[in-house]
């Protein structure tokens, strides 16, 4: 009888504790800086959030402008329709792409000029590299260098002229 009472008391204490702790453990939306999100029904896959224009702008810097624009003009419940944010992102992205394309063309031109003059210098290559680095295209440095390799394979340039000798 005594054992049964203790078990019942433990069970009750656990249930009360769990009930009290649940909102503290699961209510992330209550934290500052978070969007107000709810979990409709019991599904854990579908989450509805109400985003402010600032939050949309913050997110838009991390996802594709086309997605932001679609989201901002979708009229979905919880999304503040703000086409201006998406449009600004689109323009900024287009400008960056133009800037990157121009820098890459300029870098290619520099290297091709060095190949044509049979004199590839470290300074010239660094200048081409810098154009790519300044426009966040460091991952394309090897494409520039590969042009020099291809010129050697064509016989347009010797390894000595390319500065690729021991």
């Amino acid at each position, binding site marked *: 009888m005594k054992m049964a009472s203790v078990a019942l008391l433990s069970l009750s204490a656990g249930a009360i504790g769990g009930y009290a702790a649940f909102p503290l453990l699961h209510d992330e939306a209550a934290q500052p800086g978070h969007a107000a999100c709810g979990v409709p029904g019991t599904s854990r896959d579908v989450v509805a959030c109400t985003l402010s224009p600032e939050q949309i702008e913050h997110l838009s810097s991390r996802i594709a402008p086309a997605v932001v624009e679609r989201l901002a003009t979708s009229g979905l419940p919880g999304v503040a329709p703000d086409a201006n944010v998406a449009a600004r992102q689109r323009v900024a992205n287009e400008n960056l792409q133009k800037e990157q394309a121009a820098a890459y063309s300029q870098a290619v031109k520099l290297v091709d000029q060095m190949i044509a003059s049979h004199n590839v210098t470290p300074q010239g290559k660094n200048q081409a590299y810098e154009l790519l680095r300044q426009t966040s295209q460091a*991952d394309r440095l*090897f494409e520039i260098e590969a042009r020099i*390799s*291809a010129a*050697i*394979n*064509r016989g347009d*340039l010797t390894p000595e002229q390319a500065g690729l000798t021991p």
Partner: protein
Amino acid sequence: MNRKSKLALLAAPVLCWFALAANAGADMTRSEAGVGSCFPETDPTWDLNITYCMGTMAGIRNQTRDATRFAYFAIGSSGVANFTMVVKGVGYSCTAPSSLNDLWRTAMTTNGWFHLGFDRTTGVCKFLTISGGSNQKSAL
């Protein structure tokens, strides 16, 4: 001539052939195979734009038939890795994608064999294999 003598006479050339063949294999490993070569892919079922280069650093350095021959692995502060080789005055070169950088660093100090393939037109290295085996140590 008794039967034993006849058998010995017949066996002698066979034994000589085996001895010569074994010795040729040893020479191939020690001096010939490591001297370095570059050649294009000729099998039309593969990519005919690929050129292969292979050898050992010591084999290339120690060969005496071609004074122009060298092989050169390089990687710079920009993170761009190159391979350059000259055989009989003809230059071969490729630039490696950054995914091969670690292998490039190993290739620069290897005592074993290197074998790489690259696209002649784009100048991009496609693969690099570095190998070392007990039969290849003699190439040093």
